[in-house]
């Protein structure tokens, strides 16, 4: 199964992938630089994706817009989705959960490797 990482920062995607590998997961990783690219990747791979990690602030289509779109589509909203973002306030977390009621997790940046590993481990297949 594949993991989809959506973040406009190439450095952040590299860090997240490094932590996924450190955790011992060898899944194929799909990368997207914004919400639009995330939707493209999801469109062609959704049956093979076990987890989506998504940033909030991105150009073109933001993370909050991406999760709102995905949250409305029955087959897609079942894919575990964890937001990984600098928007770490309770208000932002509540906003994200209102857009995607089945949100699997919310990791605030800066996170430690152990924090991200703990968030993703239940969902990686």
């Amino acid at each position, binding site marked *: 199964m594949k993991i989809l990482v959506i973040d406009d*920062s190439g*450095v952040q995607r590299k860090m997240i992938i490094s932590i996924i590998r450190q955790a011992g997961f060898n899944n194929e990783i799909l990368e997207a630089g914004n919400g639009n690219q995330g939707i493209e990747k999801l469109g062609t791979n959704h049956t093979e994706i076990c987890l989506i990690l998504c940033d909030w602030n991105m150009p073109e289509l933001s993370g909050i817009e991406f999760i709102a779109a995905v949250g409305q589509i029955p087959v897609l909203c079942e894919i575990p989705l964890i937001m990984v973002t600098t928007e770490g*306030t*309770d208000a932002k977390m509540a906003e994200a959960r209102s857009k995607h009621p089945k949100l699997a997790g919310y990791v605030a940046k*800066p996170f430690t490797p152990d924090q991200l590993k703990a968030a993703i481990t239940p969902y990686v297949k």
Partner: protein
Amino acid sequence: MELDIIDVFTGSLRAVHRALISMSGKKVDEMPYIAKQEGSSFMVLAPDNTFSSVILFEHSKSVPPVKGALVVYMSKFNVINLFGDSLGFTADSSKTEMADACGELCNLVLGGFKSDMAKQGYGEIEISTPHNYVDAVSEVLPLQTKHRYYMSFASGKDPLISVTIGIGNA
């Protein structure tokens, strides 16, 4: 609630520690070298082989609104030293990638700072995207500061990164 410089200073201190651990897995000494700076103009000033990254922020709920800037400076040597393991940087890595890493560190510092300020009851702080500089730079930012601090973070005797933070009124 007006942004208090002590809260800004201590918040940014905590944020730098957390951001460095997040990106590099490495800790720096608890207390940096700190210098309060005088003067109202705020500059980004760095020599060659340095990566600098600036983020502007604003707290519109302060009366009057408060604007600020945070600048992170890292030498090429320390980008490799800190991020060689986590991001695979070597002496041959592109300067653009290294500048992106410095920008991302700056972004993480401000992200942590934002969350810290929100927990202290200040509400939302708006932050810009990082503006990255490679090598020598001498640029005045559009900000007149009332308070400005320079912090240099080290691990033992080895300086690793320096940060300047300033706030003033919009």
